[in-house]
């Protein structure tokens, strides 16, 4: 299931707002076969690191932080 903003918000809450920990969590998830499949389905290619970096940048922009 594609990640939504409210899930990302919850992830930040879960990790006390620590972006490094959120990034680590997301890298773990997108490194799994399920996460890889999700990346493929959403047309994302390339490495997980880059994907997570872009995802978090988009989130920051969305949340205005």
């Amino acid at each position: 299931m594609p990640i939504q903003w409210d899930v990302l918000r919850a992830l930040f809450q879960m990790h006390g707002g620590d972006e490094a920990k959120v990034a680590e969590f997301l890298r773990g998830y997108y490194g799994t076969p399920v996460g890889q499949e999700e990346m493929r389905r959403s047309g994302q290619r390339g490495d997980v690191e880059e994907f997570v970096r872009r995802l978090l940048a988009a989130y920051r922009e969305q949340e205005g932080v």
Partner: protein
Amino acid sequence: MIVPGTPPNQRYNPKLKVKVEEAKGVRRFFRWDDRARAAAERTNQGRYGFVLASTLARWAEATGRHMLSFVDAEWYWRTHGYPEHVAKVFAWEKGMSSREAMFFLRRVRRFFLTVARDYGVDMRQFCDALAGTLPDPAERAKRDAEALLEALCAVRSPQLVRDLLFKAWNEGPEVLLGEAQADGAG
């Protein structure tokens, strides 16, 4: 049995145990066959590991959920508890509704606490339990056990999980790793 260091509010509660055991579909997971019991007689840790893995395998089969979902659920509530935002993340990761995720986390928590109380060990010791037959209980054994756990989680048949565990306590987990991985990949 009270686990050393367990907060008072998580100590043995007969009512909770009855409730968990009588919950729909859970009671049967506590049934053992004779062979399982024989294997489990070896050590308390072995008994715990066997019950845990066997139960998770049956539970996964009954709910259509992957065995790793249960292991992950235990990690979620142990490290983050289960407030709403944690349930939301778990729901996303496992493709559940938030409501289902909350139910799942609570049920799994109760299950692990009950087994931990009964056998005096927790999930972190589960991997060590799987490594019970290895001569070196330190880091290498733990890594082997974690690999075995992952492999077991990928095995499709609960009966096969039980068979593999039975062999594990007789022959050592390292012997089984290839077998479990082969089935998981098959």
